[in-house]
């Protein structure tokens, strides 16, 4: 029983990892109606920036804040400079640009920082809470941070005029322009926020999985699955999806089919859910007029 609980909690921690990156994916989807495949690598690069700052002597929270800020600006710049020229290109061409970004960030990180793994500090205490050894304080902390970001995101989209403007710009750019929304800058803002969320995700993940250029490549797949499982337009769904994927993967691996095929089975199950509920668990089914 205790092993079962341990697997569940371990799954929640990894699920939190997936959820945080899934949030960044949802963010960028809500703002631009594109899934940015380079999100993971951007998050990894931001984490390396944080590492450089910490190694230069800055205290953790200052480096954290600076990294989030730099990532935000970086996201905006990337959208305005690199994505803007292909804004009106076919979807798949934009996907190729994302893949180009992915490969560039990964290669640059490997070149600048080498592939030796680096430790990344955690702001949370390292001693396990007394008696509760199933989950480390960092694990709990990371999950809390993810939930906090989720709440902020939800509030932003639901209750602020800026959030509303962003959603409008993504859903119907032409109409949004007519109402006076500067669609271009909404897209840039969306990218900036997604990059910032990605940076937070990276800094929460790195203490668990160690920092190296390939840190996020595995996570991206799970985050993608989690975001779609929960419904790509639902931040809450993405987080729930992340936790489900994390726990499901652990339980499938430990009790059902062994580690060899656990990824395959988990994905089959997710796709099965999507076949039954094509918009995801919490997504809104789009009804289009013909």
């Amino acid at each position, binding site marked *: 029983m205790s092993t079962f609980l341990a697997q569940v909690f371990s799954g929640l921690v990894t699920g939190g990892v997936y959820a945080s990156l899934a949030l960044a994916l949802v963010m960028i989807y809500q703002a631009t109606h594109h899934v940015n495949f380079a999100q993971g690598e951007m998050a990894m690069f931001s984490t390396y920036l944080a590492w450089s700052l910490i190694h230069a002597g800055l205290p953790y929270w200052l480096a954290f804040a600076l990294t989030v800020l730099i990532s935000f600006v970086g996201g905006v710049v990337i959208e305005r400079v690199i994505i803007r020229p292909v804004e009106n290109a076919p979807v798949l061409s934009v996907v190729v640009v994302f893949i180009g970004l992915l490969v560039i960030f990964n290669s640059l990180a490997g070149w600048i920082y080498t592939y030796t793994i680096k430790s990344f500090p955690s702001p949370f205490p390292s001693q396990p809470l007394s008696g509760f050894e199933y989950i480390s304080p960092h694990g709990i902390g990371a999950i809390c941070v993810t939930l906090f970001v989720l709440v902020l995101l939800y509030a932003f989209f639901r209750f602020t005029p800026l959030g509303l403007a962003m959603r409008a710009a993504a859903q119907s750019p032409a109409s949004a322009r007519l109402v006076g929304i500067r669609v271009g800058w909404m897209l840039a803002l969306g990218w900036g926020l997604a990059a910032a969320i990605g940076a937070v995700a990276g800094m929460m993940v790195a203490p668990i999985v160690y920092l190296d250029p390939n840190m996020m490549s595995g996570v991206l797949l799970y985050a993608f699955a989690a975001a779609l499982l929960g419904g790509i337009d639902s931040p809450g769904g993405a987080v729930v999806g992340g936790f489900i994927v994390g726990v499901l993967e652990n339980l499938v691996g430990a009790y059902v089919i062994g*580690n060899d095929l656990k990824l395959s089975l988990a994905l089959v199950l997710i796709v099965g859910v999507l076949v039954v509920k094509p918009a995801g668990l919490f997504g809104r089914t789009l009804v289009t007029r013909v």
Partner: protein
Amino acid sequence: MKLKQIITPAALAIGVVLASAPAFAAKHYGPGVTDSEIKIGQCMPYSGPASAYGEFGKAHEAYFKMINDHGGINGRKVDLISLDDGYSPPKTVEQTRKLVEQDNVLLIFGSLGTPTNSAVHKYLNAKKVPQLFVATGATKWGDPKHFPWTMGWQPSYQQEGRIYAADILKNHPHAKIGVLYQNDDYGKDYLKGLVDGLGAKAKTMIVKEVSYETSEPTIDSQIVALKGSGADVFVNITTPKFAAQAIRQAYDIGWKPVQYLNNVSNSIGAVLKPAGLEKSVGIISSTYYKDAADPQWANDPGMIKFKEWMKKYLPNGDPSDNFNVIGYAQAETMEHVLKACGNDLTRANIMKQAAHIKNLELGLLLPGLKVNTTPTDFFPLGQLQLEKFDGKEWKLIGSVMGK
């Protein structure tokens, strides 16, 4: 009479010397060799899932740069052409063919990876191109009868697995063994060595075998499963990133088995420090070289030379990462073979010299370990010594094992 008796043999002797003098100075060159240059090639995973191992290639390049700065080998500069194959066998085939057929390299040195080297194994032997000091521990590279142009370098994974099995049988005969292994040829090769070494007892002693893919972000779940199986001996067959995760996770969830760590991942700087030095106390591993972050070698002349080389030729590299140590030692072995060829730099002679390495001592090998090959033994390094981590350094235990 007497004078004639002296002169004739003398004349004969001088005649013989004069006749063979050209042979002494004669230069026999294979492809890629000139009076001033030797071209060698390799494929490395500079990109892709195994990009961590690209560090070997960087170390090789830096080593030959140092050699060239000191005049090269027998007056010839070594030009190492190192190409990226992304750990993808089709790409390895393409790049290796380019090296052999277009760049005309003399030999292939230290290419990394078992599937990648397997893909060009037959090709290189058919073309009679030396495939030297292959950078993987698979057992198949030491088969001179069927593949006379291929040679490995490091002690094989299976041998290491057997050594751990022997130690377990000796010191923990009633152990319940849990194994974590990477789900590829490297992990499975180690596992085979372990199982073979345990013999009939393998079935009863190994209570849990768990694998992982390199695409997985963490292996925490696997450690939890191993703890839950009740194992009290943990055989940790993982690559550095996952080894660090495994060591830390085992400690954090309160699982304290006797841990055997494979020597691909026993670097103090690259694995144990990130995992936590205090969490790594008691881990048993094996080695054939000196750990770059181990204080006991701080004043060792070979290590000092290595550290100076790192500062000058690989300033961006991590001086505590043992990948650089191994790369350095591999390149040093290659240098020795090339030097031994003198002016006869044909592929046939390269293989001949490579198959006759006698008691070569390298600055970074453990004291007492030597590189040895014979025409029937294509495993240059076949010795290992067990070591135990005490929180600061690897304390060598037992004696040197193997040939």
